[in-house]
């Protein structure tokens, strides 16, 4: 479903601030794979995710999603294939617009916008059902502006928007990291349920090692812009945080504390 081959990216190339963010990253996901990416700060996780999303153009390498070469496509032209939940709860929706308007935009993700009314009577019920899952009462606030919502509500909305039309690939960029523990758990459970029910192929970046071990069927560890360790299936299930830390001398305190 995702084939990344030899991705390289250097920021500020040719200057004294040059920084190699991706140093030949190759990763291949099959349909239904749920891969969790861990790694310390500056390991290249976010750059990798951004390059898959289209926000970062790679210097070298190729990217294919669902068999389509997307290496040269900008973000908005990949949106039909990929959806994304950002770390920042404010990033995934348009604050001055209503919940239903945001949902309407998401329902047309990757499709050309037409001169037809964005909102229709039938769609409301679909939106309600999708939002009811979170138990936050969002389903009764369809006409409220998104900027009035709390961070957790807004992130739940962002997730609902990302899975409203089934993406070929779902990108989760530490999407629970900015939430309080209880909301983070709700959003994570909703994520897992959606991945399960819609048989999504997903790529999740996290700082939380326990999440990395517990969730998904694949674990990818990055360091210095490279994939340094992969585990899948039972190998992955039997991993412990201690093993991961010990084996790779990861002393990133953010990961230990998470």
């Amino acid at each position, binding site marked *: 479903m995702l084939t990344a081959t030899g991705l390289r990216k250097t920021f500020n190339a040719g200057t004294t601030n040059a920084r190699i963010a991706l140093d030949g990253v190759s990763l291949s996901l099959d349909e239904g794979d749920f891969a969790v990416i861990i790694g310390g700060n500056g390991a290249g996780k976010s750059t990798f995710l951004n390059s898959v999303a289209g926000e970062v153009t790679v210097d070298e390498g190729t990217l294919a999603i669902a068999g389509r070469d997307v290496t040269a496509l900008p973000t908005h032209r990949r949106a039909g294939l990929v959806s994304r939940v950002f770390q920042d709860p404010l990033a995934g929706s348009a604050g001055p*617009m209503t919940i239903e308007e945001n949902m309407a935009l998401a329902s047309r993700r990757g499709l050309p916008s037409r001169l037809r009314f964005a909102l229709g009577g039938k769609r409301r019920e679909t939106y309600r059902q999708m939002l009811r899952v979170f138990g936050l009462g969002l389903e009764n606030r369809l006409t409220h502006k998104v900027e009035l919502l709390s961070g957790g509500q807004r992130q739940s909305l962002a997730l609902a928007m990302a899975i409203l039309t089934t993406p070929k690939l779902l990108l989760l960029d530490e999407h629970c990291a900015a939430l309080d523990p209880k909301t983070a758990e709700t959003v994570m459970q909703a994520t897992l349920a959606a991945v399960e029910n819609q048989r999504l192929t997903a790529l999740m970046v996290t700082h939380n090692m326990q999440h990395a071990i517990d969730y998904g069927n694949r674990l990818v560890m990055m360091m210095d812009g490279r994939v340094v360790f992969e585990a899948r299936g039972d190998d992955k299930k039997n991993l412990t945080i201690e093993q991961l830390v010990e084996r790779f001398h990861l002393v990133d305190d953010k990961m230990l504390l998470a």
Partner: protein
Amino acid sequence: MDILNIFINLVPITLLQGVIYGFVALGIMIPFRILSFPDLTAEGSFPLGGSVAAAAIAAGMHSVTATLLALLAGFLAGCATALIHLKLRLNTLLCGIIVLTMLFSVNIRIMGKPNQPIFAQDNLFDILLGDYARVLPLQIALIAGLLAATAILLLLFFKTEFGTAMRAVGANPLMARAQGISIWRHTILGIGLAGSLCAVGGALLAQNQSFADVNMGFGVLLNGLAAVIVGETLVGRDTLPRQLLAPAVGAIAYYQAISLALALGLEPSDLKFLTGAFVLLMLAIPSMKGQRQPVKMRA
């Protein structure tokens, strides 16, 4: 009592001004409020609309066609500003200044001279109002009707998929891209739309006063911005209908306030300072209260 008399005598003519400048206020509101693209092009697209309409009418063109031609010219001017910003990543205000300055020369080229009288030709008012073309209340009703129709069309447009996408581009470009919305297409068309509204305002004014002048745009941006702020204070901007009503109401109220200032004995030349001071004050209040930025710019 003199002041009141002068003010009342000025009401019809300032009402007409108000509804004509309502188009410009709408054309200024869209970049500032909906697209988060603070833009000065209005200062050039407004006289551009006047120049194109006057030159076309003077050349014998039907006034409706001439007005539509002005609309198209304003659209292109807006597109130019948006393209410069997107292509060169220059500050939107600078892009607008470049375009409006260049338009000064363009406008003189279009008319062949700094101003173009069209007293002899039939204008929009002559054609639509016939024998009553010089009746001020009817002129006001005509333009007010056009303005209301424009605002309603815009409201409907901003509720379509395309219009919703355009609003998303202004509200959160990152999210818009992730939803597959082209920032370029929607920004260019949105700023173009704003430019055409300003140009229509210029075309209407030129036809109403029967001449266009290359300097007719001077200060129009700040007047329009003041009108938008006045309107938002009066009707709010919480919902889309209010956001679209505000410029129209604001333009009418603003020109009444101007006329009051004149009735009180101020010189017309003092008004630019007053308008500037007013806009400054209205922008300063939110930031002094520590509230959100009064004019949002894209990240």
